[in-house]
């Protein structure tokens, strides 16, 4: 049984459970009253708590704010047992606290400290990096630290990611074409990848197992892999998408599996064996190839484009804006596109066994 979270623009939060055994999708809808949601992230410590960035329109002004919310109790306790699994089941989120951003402008995203006790948050607001401490019972958020990005022109953070390594003291952020790394203790910049992408950097992700490795994607249709110790050039570049890549995600437990979603309405699952934490150069590499070929014959919809590309998913009909691995089952992932379609896919079985065995 897995749980994924998804958002709709229409001010609802849908909690979707996917029952692996029965192939049944359960959906719970929570009303998000504040406004349309732009970014969402769940607390790693308390699974009932989540943070959102949302648009608030008032007096003909659009502001993007951030807040921390708590889901209703009964959902936490196991939603699949909930008697009403229809979509009409709407409940309201309980507001825990606002992250006050009036001084800093629009919130781009909120990220939780990945290993902590759910007390620390980073939010990116225009050109500020804000570190928040949640007070007791998460009812109050205090701005504990902040750093500002300075430069000419209007600099805006587009996304950020909290590194799970180094005792959670590193955050990477992206603005325009550059990627920056921050130390949360001193709030200083520790590395800076200039011109990481030819155009806007859309998303980042840290390799969960290799502390210096970072994946990024952007408007130049590329997914790049970086070693933060040597930022002059990428370790590897994938150029498979034909439009902006909106999202890139490492698999939580098998870091050779990388998902990327793009506005060419495709999701590409790549197998980056060469830069993963797995020992490179299996004796069975040839088998892997033949496996892929078998797989190709079995399923026509998935085509291995290259050695490193496992599958391309083309179920979406419009731009894919988000992809995410399941936190419970490492072989499952979901993707969301503009046409409002959420697609849950599984890693090809042959590859799964190949990695496991």
């Amino acid at each position, binding site marked *: 049984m897995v749980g994924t979270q998804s958002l709709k623009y*229409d001010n609802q939060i849908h909690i979707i459970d996917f029952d692996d055994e029965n192939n049944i999708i359960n959906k719970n809808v929570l009303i998000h009253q504040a406004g349309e949601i732009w970014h969402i992230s769940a607390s790693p410590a308390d699974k009932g708590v989540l943070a959102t960035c949302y648009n608030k329109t008032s007096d*003909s002004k659009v502001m993007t704010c951030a807040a921390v919310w708590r889901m209703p109790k009964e959902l936490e306790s196991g939603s699949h047992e909930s008697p009403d699994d229809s979509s009409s089941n709407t409940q309201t989120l309980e507001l825990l606290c606002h992250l006050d951003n009036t001084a800093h402008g629009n919130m781009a995203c909120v990220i939780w400290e990945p290993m902590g006790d759910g007390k620390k948050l980073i939010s990116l607001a225009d050109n500020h990096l804000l570190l928040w401490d949640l007070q007791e019972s998460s009812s109050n958020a205090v701005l504990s630290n902040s750093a500002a990005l300075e430069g000419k022109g209007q600099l805006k953070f587009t996304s950020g990611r909290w590194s799970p390594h180094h005792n959670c003291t590193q955050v990477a952020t992206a603005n325009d074409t550059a990627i920056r790394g921050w130390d949360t203790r001193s709030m200083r910049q520790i590395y800076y990848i200039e011109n990481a992408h030819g155009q806007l950097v859309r998303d980042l992700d840290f390799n969960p197992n290799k502390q210096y490795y970072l994946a990024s994607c952007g408007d130049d249709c590329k997914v790049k892999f970086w070693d933060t110790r040597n930022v002059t050039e990428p370790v590897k570049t994938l150029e498979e998408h034909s439009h902006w890549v909106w999202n890139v995600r490492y698999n939580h437990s098998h870091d050779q599996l990388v998902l990327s979603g793009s*506005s*060419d309405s495709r999701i590409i699952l790549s197998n980056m064996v060469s830069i993963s934490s797995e020992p490179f150069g299996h004796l069975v590499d040839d088998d892997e190839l033949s496996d892929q070929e078998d797989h190709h014959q079995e399923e026509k919809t998935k085509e291995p484009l290259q050695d490193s590309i496992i599958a391309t998913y083309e179920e979406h*009909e*419009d731009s894919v804006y988000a992809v995410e691995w399941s936190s419970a089952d490492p072989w499952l992932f979901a993707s969301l596109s503009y046409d409002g379609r959420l697609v849950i896919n599984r890693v090809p079985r042959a590859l799964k066994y190949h990695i496991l065995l």
Partner: protein
Amino acid sequence: MSVPQGGPLPGPAEPGSEPPGGKRRPHGMLKLYYGLPDPAGEARGGLPPGGDPGGPTDINGAHFDPEVFLTKLRKECSLAQLMDCETDMVKQIRALDSDMQTLVYENYNKFISATDTIRKMKNDFKKMEDEMDCLAANMAVITEFSACISSTLQDQHEQITKLSGVHTLLRKLQFLFELPARLTKCVELEAYGQAVRYYSKARSILHQYQHMPSFQGIQDDCQKIMANLAQKLREKFRDGGSGAKDLAECVELLLQLDEPAEELCDEFLSHARCRLEAELEALEAELGQPGGAPITDILEFIDRGCNIFVSNMCLVIASYQELFVSREGVQGITRMAQDKLVAFVNSLMETYFSLVERRIQLEKGVGDNSLLVRALDRFHRRLQALAKLLPASNVAAEGTEIVVRAAKERIRQYLLALQSFYQDCLTDVRQSLAAPRLAGKESPNLAELLGTISASVLNQIKSVLTYVHLFTAKDITFSNKPYFKGEFCSQGVREGLIVGFIKSICQTARQFCETTGDKGGSTPPALLLLLSRLCLDYETSTISYILTLTDEQFLVQDHSPITPVTSLCAEAREAAQRLLNHYVKVQGLIISQMLRKSVETRDWVNTIEPRNVRAVMKRVVEDTTSIDVQVGLLYEEGVRKAQSSDSSKRTFSVYSSSRQQSRYAPSYTPSAPLDTNLLSNIQKLFSECIDIFSPVEFNKVSVLTGIIKISLKTFLECVRLRTFGRYGLQQIQVDCYYLQLYLWRFVCDENLVHFLLDEIVGSTAHRCLDPVPMEQSVIEVICERG
């Protein structure tokens, strides 16, 4: 003297054989009589009608029997015939009688004189016999005397012989005793050759009689002097001032003095080495300062090297071989000497080669290389001579090796030169692309530039080929080495130079695609376009032309694998494709950046009601038009879909109808999200998925379609990230309509533009707080006014 005596002279002649002349006839008869062969007579003898010649009926025959003849006549002949015969016979007898009388008369005088002569001779012989007897007596006396004298002289003769022997011995002894003095004198006069000759004459004798004290003394003296002489010779030898000939002389003398050959070899060689090394140093000095320009040109350098060093080397080798190697002597010495010589030559030639090679490496100019080729040729030729002189050494092989290396190096340099030339061309193009833009007429010279660059590159290739071709010219000695015939042509020139160059062109093209992607387009897009066209031209014609040219000039005999034309063409085509794709990307990026900035920087919630098309849209259309012109200069029009030829009127209507749908879209309320999905899905059912950054084809329409797709998709994505007010939506509507009015003619499938623009308006409506669309007529009015 023959006298016709008796015989059948008066015999009857045959009736048919009348003698032609009385004179002639009797001789014939006489001859017949004496048994002499007379061909005429014999011939005549066969004629008588009586048949058997010599038979009893033949009147001229030896066995003539008158009885038989008469009976025969009587039997056979008539009376008349007998009468005739009788008259005939009488006539003949008369004639014969007169003949006989004439002969007797003629020969009578001769008989008389012969008798006289014989009588005279008898008297003379008698006188002579007496004189002969006298002579014999005298001779006997003389013999006796002579014997007497010789017996007397015998003793004295023996004495004289003995005396002359003693004399010779004495002279030898005198020579020996005088030898030290003479030698000293010779040494003083520096007539070493003479001295050695003297000494070598005396040496064996002295050696033989050295047990005698006096000879011992002489020998000691001589040896001392000769040691001195040898010393002097050696000094002279070491001195080094003398030429090779003197040196050779010295060595010869020393050898005659039984100096150890090995030592001499060493000394000779070391001496020669000194001189040759000095020459090498002089050569090295000519190399000039390291890094600095060489003092003399390469031909002169090689010339000098050949004339001085190599010829001296030859001289040394020749004299050495004459002195040591070809000498009749112990085999071991010959071999040792030969080995030494080879080692010596090899070591020196190595130095020389390294010098030559350094010099060749200094030769970096890439212009006409005939000088270099000639220099190499000369170098090679001289080495051949040297190698002939000393076949055991590997100079020839190494020399060829050097030439080969030089040729390879040359090819490499030409490749570099070609590449840099190409880069220069690109820089020129870049500059001329930048310059006229200031002058205001940016595009008309694109095609010209393309022509210029391809022509100049082609010319450069041709001239380089000509230069390289010198290496294989017929009059160059090394051109018929297998390397130059085979590998040089195919691997060196064809693969290394031409294929390498073409590959580097493609490589450069690819680099343009890759680097600019990261660094934000430092290459002017027009250059990308130009290069793309260039690569395409290469693919279609130039590559095969160049390769054919190369193959013709260098008749490749080598069968090593060569890059086929097709793969090069494929590479060029790929490069062209990538460049064009990149061009599309860059141009698309420029326009989409413009659109993105315009969408992101505006506050769409609080805009005023649209009165005009936004300036940025006009700019987009302008840019697209200029790109269209630019691409049109280099690429053909390409194929549009059928409906594109329709008038713009219909385009409007299509657009309007789809607009009708999209205008519908905003009317649903947020509570009915399913409708939106349904609607957009239905829309999408009718339009295929669009590949935004798809590869383009080599024509104008395809290029522009690519650019416009990219731009509009960006517009769409940007719009989806914003929130719009009512007027914001209306502004987008106006903008889209404007774009639609102008962009359709650039693309191959106008439905694509419609689809994307509808999507934009639809998304805007979706993102709109207060979706109230503008009237279509108003939009049209605004757009036409703008």
